[in-house]
C-alpha cells in the first residue's frame, strides 16, 4: 500500500513535467527561431532554427496592444505548431494579396487571441523585410468544417488567425475554431464604417 502514493507521485511529476514541457518548448523554440530569423533576413535562404527541424520561420507577427512578438513557422503540422504559429501553405503568402492564414495552439501562442479586439493592429513582417499592418475586423466562432473562412478572396489583403475554441476547454479534438479576420490598413479605412482607435 505504501507504494501507491509514490507511484501516484511519479505519475503526477511526469504529467506536470510533460505539461510544462509543452509550454517551455513553445517559449524556448521561439527564442531559437529568433536567431534563425536574424540570420535569414541577412541572406535569402531558409535557415532552420535547429538542424533537424522540418520547418523554418516565414514571418514575424507582432501585436503591440498585447505585447506579442512571435515567429510564424512554415506549415501547420503538429511539429511546427508545437514551436510557433504555423502558416498554411495553401493560403496567400504573408503580406501579399489574398487571404493569409496562420494557425496556432489556443493554450500556447494564440492564447492572446481571446483578448484581441476589433480595431487592434496586427503587424506581419516577412524575411525579405516587407511588412504590412492589418486591422482586426471580425472575430468569430466557427465550426471546423466551415471552410468558407479559409477561402481566398484575392481582391483584398487579408489575414486570418485561427485557433481552437473554447479557450479553456480541456478537450483536444473540439469542433469549434476561433477565427480572427483582419484586413490591410488602407482597405480597412476605405471600406469600414468603424472608426480607428486614435
Amino acid at each position, binding site marked *: 500500500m505504501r507504494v501507491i502514493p509514490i507511484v501516484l507521485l511519479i505519475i503526477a511529476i511526469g*504529467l*506536470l513535467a510533460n505539461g510544462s514541457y*509543452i509550454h517551455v518548448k513553445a517559449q524556448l523554440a521561439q527564442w531559437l527561431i529568433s536567431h534563425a530569423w536574424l540570420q535569414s533576413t541577412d541572406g535569402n535562404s531558409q535557415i532552420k532554427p535547429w538542424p533537424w527541424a522540418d520547418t523554418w520561420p516565414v514571418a514575424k507577427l507582432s501585436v503591440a496592444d498585447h505585447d506579442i512578438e512571435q515567429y510564424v513557422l512554415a506549415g501547420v*503540422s503538429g511539429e511546427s505548431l508545437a514551436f510557433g504559429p504555423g502558416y498554411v501553405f495553401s493560403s496567400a503568402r504573408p503580406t501579399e494579396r489574398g487571404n493569409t492564414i496562420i494557425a496556432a*495552439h489556443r493554450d500556447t501562442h494564440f492564447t492572446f487571441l481571446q483578448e484581441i479586439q476589433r480595431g487592434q493592429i496586427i503587424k506581419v513582417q516577412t524575411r525579405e523585410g516587407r511588412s504590412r499592418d492589418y486591422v482586426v475586423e471580425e472575430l468569430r466562432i*466557427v465550426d471546423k468544417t466551415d471552410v468558407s473562412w479559409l477561402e481566398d478572396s*484575392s481582391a483584398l489583403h487579408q489575414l486570418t488567425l485561427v485557433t481552437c475554441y473554447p479557450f479553456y476547454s480541456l*478537450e483536444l479534438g473540439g469542433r469549434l475554431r476561433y477565427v480572427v479576420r483582419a484586413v490591410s490598413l488602407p482597405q480597412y479605412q476605405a471600406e469600414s464604417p468603424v472608426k480607428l482607435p486614435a
Partner: protein
Amino acid sequence: MKTLRGDLGTTLLQSLLRCTATSVYIGLAISSLLMVVVFFSTPAQAEISEIELGERVRALSDIESGQLVFKSADDHYVLSPRVNTDVDIQITGLLARIKVSQTFSNPTAQWQEGIYVFPLPETAAVDHLTMRVGERIIVGEIKEKVAARKEYQQAKSAGKQTSLVEQQRPNMFTSSVANIAPHDDITIVIEYQQRVNQKQGEFNLRYPLAITPRYIPGKALSPSAEIRHFDGHGWAVNTDQVEDASQLTPPLTPSSSNKTSISITLAAGFNLQEVTSLYHQVSLLEIDDTTREIELVSDDASARDFVLAWQAKDLQSPQAALFKQRKNGQDYALLMLTPPKTLEKETMSRELVFIVDTSGSMDGGSMEQAKKALQYGLTQLRPQDSFNIIRFSHDVGSVFSDARRATRTNIDIAHDYIDWLRADGGTEMAPALKMALQNKAEKSELRQIVFLTDGSVGNEDALFSIIENNLGNSRLFTVGIGSAPNSHFMRRAARFGRGSHHYIGSTDEVSHKMKSLFNTLSSPVLTDIKLKMDGRYELDSRTQRVADLYIGEPLLLTLKAESLADEIIISGRFGSETWQQTMSLKSGAESQAVSVLWARRSIETLMDEYRRETDNEAIKQDIIDVALAHHLVSKFTSLLAVDKTPVRPQEDPLNSQVIALNPPANSVMNQFPQTATSARLQLLIGLFLLLSALVLRWKQG
C-alpha cells in the same frame, strides 16, 4: 455511550478507508487514461489526419462521459434548420439542366438564418435562383460578389427575407437564407447547366451527395453546428449575441437528417441499351426507346455521389454532335467529337519513377496514405515496364540505382522498401527531382514520374526551374497528400512537368484516386490539337486552350463567333502520326444551353490565368463581365434574391446557423487545422494526482 462512540469511530474509519480506496482507483484510472492522452498528443502524433484524431478523441470522451473530467464542448449545439433537397434533372442528348430545390425549415420558435454548404459538379454553370415564400416567388439577380453580400446583409438586418447563392470553390457553393419565420419554411431553387460525361462509348451524369460516413447526420452531433457570430460589419443583430453567449438556445435532440430526392428525365437522342444507377437504388420507367424516367427510391442522403450511366444500343453512340445558339448578335456552338478508335495502338513500354516525400511533416496519416498509394502503383506495373522508387527527406535514397524491369523479384524488393520507409527529418526536394529527371541510357518511349508529397517547401521557384530545365521526354504527375497539402505548388509543378495534379484526402480514397491517375498514365494521348475555321471566331489561347486528349474521351469545344463558318478543321498529333477531321457546322440542333456552357468554360480558363498572374485585376474584370452577361455564379459574382417587405419585427433577434455538408475531399483544405495541446489537461490532472499522493502519504504516515 461507549459502544455508540465506538460504532461511530468504526463507521468513520470505514468510510475513510472507502474514500481512500475509491480515490486510488479513480487516480489509477485517470492516470492510465492520461497515458493514452499523452500518447496520442505528442507532436509527432498530432499530425495524424483529422479523421483519425477526431475519432480517437471522440472515443476517449465517450469513456469519460460519466466522469466530469472532460467538459463537453457540445453544450452549444442546437437544433438546426433542416434542409430538404429535391433534385430535378432533364437530360437532352449531351446536355443536362438541373434544378435543385432546397427547403429550409425552421423548427424553432426564433427567427433563423440558415447557411447551407453544398457540393455541385466542378463544371456546373449556375445561372438561376428563385426564392419561394408561401405563394410568392422572387427571382434572383446576378451581382458582383461583394455588392451582393452587402445587400444581403442589409436586407437581413432590415428583417427582409432574402437568399444568396455564392461560389466558394468551383465545386462548392453556399446558399444563405435569412429571416426564416418561426415554424415556417423558405424554398430556394437553384438551376444549373451541365454537359453529360462521355467516355469509351458510355455516358454518365454525376450529382454530388458527398456526405462521408464520419459526419452521418443523426449521430450525436448532427453535421450542423450552432455558430455564434461576432459580426464585425456593424450590423447590430449578431453582435448582441456575444454578450448573451451564456443564454444560448439550450441543446435539443437532433431531429431527422437532411433529405434528398432525385428525379430524372433522360432523353438520350438514340436507342438506349442499358440505364443504371451506379450506387443507388432507383425506379426506372421506360417511356419509349430513347426516353426513360428515373427516380431515387430511398430519399436518405447517401455517403456516395449519385451517378447515372447509360449506353447506346448496338454501340451506335454518336461520334459527333453539334449544338448551336444565336444570342445578342453572336453565334455560339458546342461541338463534340470522338476521335475514332482506330487510333488506339499497342500501349508503349514505359518507365515509371515514384518519388515519395518522407520528411517529418508526412508523419502519421500522410505517410500511410503515401505507402498505400505506392503499393497500389506497384500493382499497376506491366512486365514490359521498368520502375524505380526514390525517397527523400533531408537526404535522398532509392530502391534501385537505376530503373529496373518490373519482374516479380524486383516488385517484392520494392514492397519491402516501402514497408521500411519512415517519415523523419527535413524536406530537400531538389536532389530527388534531379535524380528522377535524369535520363538513363536505356531509352523508354514514355517516361512518367509520380511525385507523392504534402508539398511543404519554400523554395518553389528553384524547383520549378529544375523541372523545366531537366524535363526532356519525362512527364511529371503530382499527388498531394494529407489534410492541407500545398496544392498551389503541386498544381504548378505538374504544369511545368506537363502532367496533371491529383489529390488524396484520406486513406479511403487512395485506391480510387490512384486508379484515376493510372488510367490517365496508361492512355495514349492526342496532343497539339489545332482548329481551323474561316471567319471571326473566339478561340484563341487567351480564352480557351484545347487540352491534350486521352483516347476514348470526346473532344469538346465551345465556340463563339460573330457568324460561324460552314466548316471547321480539327487536327492533332498522336505520337508520330497526324490526325485530321473536317466537320460541317451548317446543321446542328438549337439549344439555349450553349452560350451558358461557353461562358462557364471561359470563366474556367480565365480563372486559371487569374491564379497564375500576380497583376490580375484586369482578368478579374473580364471574369465579372462574362459572368454578369450570362447570369452566372462565379468566384466574383453571386445570385441574390430579396423580398421587398420586411417580415421580422426589429426587436426579435435573428439566430444564425451553418448547416454544413462535409466538403468534398479534393478541396484545397477541407478542415481547419488542429490547434489545441494537452498541456492544460496534463497539468491539471498532474496536480490532482500530486494532491492525492500527498493526502495518501499523510494518511499512511
